[in-house]
């Protein structure tokens, strides 16, 4: 039987998605449901003097109005930071309380203050308008670079500083810098991004007054984790009385990891008003309250020798957490960022120092790549600048500093098990016709255009993550994954996974894996996810972990099925177990060549008794049934890597930047479905080009989000991209039996520096910050013209 793993199997989910048959949270309606509208702070920072709900309560159709006072009285817990990070001086991070409904103070525009439930959506809106909140507006802290000098916005958080974290050895770095021929310096802003999942957040809550069970349908990347957090920290309901269902979810990118205010409030309130509740975010609410991404201000330096060897690296970053520390908010700018900031290079000495600050802006958390795009941007801008200043070819300087062997003990934390960085960069050069660039540059020049080429070589640590490692770094939970494989009596198989698909195509990929392991047609396998009542447990999907952790749990559970199948088949075929071979879905007695299909064996597993001449097929010591589960905890992170090359052409008259060519060569280890992987890479590159050229989140000095709609926030569109030229190299991961590495985030990690390096190359080395919008580029072109004129 041909292997399904490695083939371009069409997606099982396409049928329902392309025909509009997806079932999203907003598609779910419960009889007798009420509609929730949240009253949100219009101010970035304001004391809440009073909340008057009397008029709203009398408003037509209003069923209930609840505020921060009631939720505090009911002792419902707030939102949490999932990772405890310590400062360099050993002190614990400072985390302010984040109640689901703000009671005393609002800390960002859009923070929920009260909620109105009504019979119809319009009546809920009408009612919400009648809730009178008396605010005392306070001066907002908006700019992360100024936050430490500004008035503290949270009690007990001096200088608005959550932590001042250090990874690495300052002394060793100072010594390395003292010996260097040259110090390359960059000042970078990693621009804040709004995730903009296609489907806005939503929840539908159904409280069953008889069983006292709450069912929460929600837009989550990790329903089991949501249940755990809501139960353990929110105190909304005991875990066995709370069912969380995340049905089809239309994109997350990290923004749907968190348990949000609205889910906690609606779950609590449904029990209180004894009515089902439905809440669906409007797009503006998504802009204002979904967790945002990135937002770093970085100064970094690279010490180099004249022949282009890297000697030392330092990174001083201010990371904006926004108003509150959320689930991955504190780890994203530390352990997901610092260790990767030395990139794919052997650098003898390095440190990363990160000061995480609170501001009166939307909370910042994981966003596709989480920390690793910021790390890659930092090192790859430095490397490109070093090449330029030293007059060394930009690919040569990279090759010079790649590790010579694997495992590669990276400077700060990681030991990278496998890779071949030289092969990746060589392939990218060839695919991008790197050698032919100068001719293309001349041709552009002849047309009055500026052409630039940019390279970046990246690695990232994903497959998040080994529990022992992450818990020692401050993670509140272990990041294993579970799977359960149910081989039903009639031969159909249900694979339950704790991972969650919100665009990753797990229905297909996981079915390919299970079908290969069990030797059955893929059509016989159904992948079930997204419901805490179905399947064992799970940590969800983020950090490119679904295949590398969740997929392996499926493999291991399947192996247990086969192992039990062998014992049963041996009894059925009246041979010893070691005389049975399992191949292509059949258990074969080697000597007699008699066989039983896995379907026959499964059926037999459900018939444990004796009847007439039939003997029980269940061996002594075994139980009936054919259901196995597995919890997989990886031995290490996985480390995808690669090299991307981008060419841009700039029109100096308008400043318009056109991405002319984009080549990506990635090493994701073994690839299960090349078509799906290519789709993931396309999406990641698109997001990265969005960050580099288009997406420009702007708050004004009072903390109002200026770019809170698609009229003002530029999402990249298809006509902003060339056709992506993709290639792959393959070294197997040694930390898991499939040899897979994860591919979900790589495109978004590698592409921003690749594009910016190309833009800056076209501008003759002139630094420019992301996003490189037309006007910024136009101004840089004018400066360039002036300095060229002077030089002439």
């Amino acid at each position: 039987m041909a292997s399904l793993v490695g083939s371009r199997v069409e997606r099982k989910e396409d049928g329902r998605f392309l025909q509009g048959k997806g079932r999203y949270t907003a598609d779910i309606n419960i009889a007798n449901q009420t509609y929730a509208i949240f009253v949100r702070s219009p101010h970035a920072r304001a004391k809440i003097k009073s909340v008057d709900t009397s008029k709203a309560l009398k408003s037509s159709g209003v069923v209930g109005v609840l505020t921060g006072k009631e939720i505090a009285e009911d002792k419902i817990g707030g939102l949490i930071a999932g990772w405890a990070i310590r400062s360099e001086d050993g002190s614990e991070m400072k985390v302010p309380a984040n109640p689901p409904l703000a009671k005393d103070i609002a800390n960002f525009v859009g923070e929920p203050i009260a909620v109105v439930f009504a019979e119809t959506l319009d009546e809920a809106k009408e009612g919400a308008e009648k809730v009178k909140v008396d605010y005392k507006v306070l001066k907002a802290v908006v700019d992360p670079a100024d936050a430490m000098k500004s008035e503290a916005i949270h009690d007990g958080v001096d200088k608005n500083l959550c932590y001042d974290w250090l990874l690495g050895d300052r002394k060793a770095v100072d010594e390395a810098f003292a010996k260097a021929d040259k110090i390359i310096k960059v000042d970078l802003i990693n621009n804040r991004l709004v995730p903009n999942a296609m489907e806005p957040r939503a929840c539908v809550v159904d409280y069953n007054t008889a069983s006292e069970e709450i069912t929460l349908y929600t837009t989550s990347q990790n329903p089991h984790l949501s249940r755990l957090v809501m139960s353990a920290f929110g105190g909304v309901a005991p875990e066995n009385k709370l069912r969380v269902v995340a049905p089809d979810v239309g994109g997350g990118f990290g923004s749907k990891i968190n348990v949000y205010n609205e889910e906690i409030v609606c779950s609590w309130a449904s029990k209180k008003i004894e009515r089902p509740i439905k809440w669906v975010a409007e797009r503006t609410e998504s802009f204002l309250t979904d967790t945002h991404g990135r937002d770093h201000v970085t100064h970094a330096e690279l010490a180099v020798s004249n022949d282009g060897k890297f000697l030392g690296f330092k990174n001083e970053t201010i990371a904006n957490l926004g108003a509150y520390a959320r689930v991955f908010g504190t780890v994203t700018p530390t352990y997901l960022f610092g260790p990767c900031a030395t990139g794919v290079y052997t650098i003898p000495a390095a440190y990363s120092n990160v000061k995480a600050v609170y501001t009166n802006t939307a909370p910042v958390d994981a966003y596709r790549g989480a920390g690793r795009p910021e790390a890659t941007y930092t090192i790859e801008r430095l490397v490109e600048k070093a090449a330029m200043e030293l007059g060394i070819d930009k690919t040569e300087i990279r090759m010079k500093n790649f590790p010579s062997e694997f495992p590669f003990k990276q400077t700060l934390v990681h030991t990278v098990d496998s890779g071949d960085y030289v092969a990746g960069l060589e392939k990218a050069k060839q695919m991008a016709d790197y050698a032919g660039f100068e001719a293309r540059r001349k041709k552009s020049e002849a047309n009055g255009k500026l052409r630039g080429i940019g390279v970046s070589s990246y690695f990232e640590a994903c497959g998040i993550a080994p529990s022992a490692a992450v818990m020692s770094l401050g993670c509140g939970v272990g990041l294993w994954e579970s799977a359960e494989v149910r081989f039903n009596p009639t031969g159909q198989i249900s694979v339950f996974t704790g991972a969650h698909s919100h665009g990753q195509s797990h229905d297909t990929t996981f079915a390919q894996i299970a079908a290969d392991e069990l030797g059955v047609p893929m059509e016989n396998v159904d992948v079930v996810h997204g419901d805490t009542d179905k399947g064992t447990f799970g940590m969800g999907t983020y950090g490119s972990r679904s295949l590398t952790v969740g997929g392996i749990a499926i493999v291991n559970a399947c192996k247990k099925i086969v192992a039990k199948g062998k014992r049963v088949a041996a009894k059925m075929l009246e041979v010893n177990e070691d005389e049975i071979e399992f191949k292509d879905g059949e258990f074969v007695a080697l000597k007699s060549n008699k066989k039983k299909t896995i379907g026959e064996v499964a059926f037999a597993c459900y018939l444990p008794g004796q009847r007439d001449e039939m003997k029980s097929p269940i061996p002594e010591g075994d139980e009936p049934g054919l259901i196995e589960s597995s919890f997989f905890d990886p031995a290490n992170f996985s480390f995808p890597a690669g090299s991307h090359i981008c060419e841009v052409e700039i029109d100096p008259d308008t400043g318009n930047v056109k991405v002319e060519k984009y080549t990506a060569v990635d090493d994701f280890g073994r690839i299960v479905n090349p078509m799906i992987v290519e789709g993931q890479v396309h999406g990641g590159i698109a997001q990265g080009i969005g960050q580099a050229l288009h997406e420009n989140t702007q708050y004004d000095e009072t903390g109002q989000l200026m770019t809170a709609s698609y009229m003002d926030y530029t999402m990249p569109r298809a006509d902003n991209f060339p056709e992506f030229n993709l290639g792959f190299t393959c070294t197997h991961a040694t930390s898991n039996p499939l040899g897979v590495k994860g591919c979900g985030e790589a495109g978004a990690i590698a592409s921003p520096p690749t594009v910016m390096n190309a833009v800056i190359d076209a501008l003759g080395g002139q630094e420019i910050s992301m996003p490189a919008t037309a006007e910024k580029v136009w101004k840089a072109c004018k400066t360039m013209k002036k300095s060229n004129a002077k030089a002439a």
Partner: protein
Amino acid sequence: MKTFNYHTPKDVKEASKLASTSSAFLAGGMTTIPSLKLGLATYKDVIDIKSIKKLSGIKVSGKSVTIGATTKHAEVAASKDVQKAIPALTKLAGNIGDAQVRNRGTIGGSISNNDPSACYPSACMALNAVIHTNSRKIPAAKFFTGMFETALKKGELVEAVEFEVPEKADYQKHPNPASRYAIIGVFVAKHKKEVNVAVTGAKSSVYIDKDLSKKLTSSFSSSAIEGMKLDHSEMNSDMHASSEYRANLVSLYAKKAVEAC
């Protein structure tokens, strides 16, 4: 959205009668509907004029192109007659918003709303258009009176827009990358005796750039306006573009338009 009375009058007379200080005419709804949904506007009466047949359609004569108020952008973009008479107009219509907008949005709605970044007002100005309403004919130069403001009175309804067919014309726009409205748009029309350069997006309302028009009237060539610096003191400056950048673009795109003529 607040509740309102929804009317579907059969003719212009009935539509006009229904109008009050708290009413809105609804054509494609590309601005009115979002305004209602976002609570930026509330009306007691919404008067849907889409079913008034007389208001839709295109008439082309030797000297003019007349487009009915509820004619959609997509219809103008696809019209072979308009393409033959004033190709710049089909080009403009074909690049408004996206396919969804072009299949609902109408010329009457666009000019009555007079968004400072809308495309059509520049065509009206450059092509010496006459706006036919249910009570009078208004020259374009007197129709667009300010940001989102026009000469229309209460109950007055645009019925059609009559454009003068020029010798040559072209429209060039620098779209806002987010909304794809015009950061600036320049409509250059060469008539027998004059050249009009109408600019949208740059100021609070559409206008004729007199300097550019004058230079091109005396010599219709891109070299006549090459590198011309425009006064940007009255131009819009916002997070999408500074006034200085806009001034550069107006001059540049005027040149591009002349070259494309």
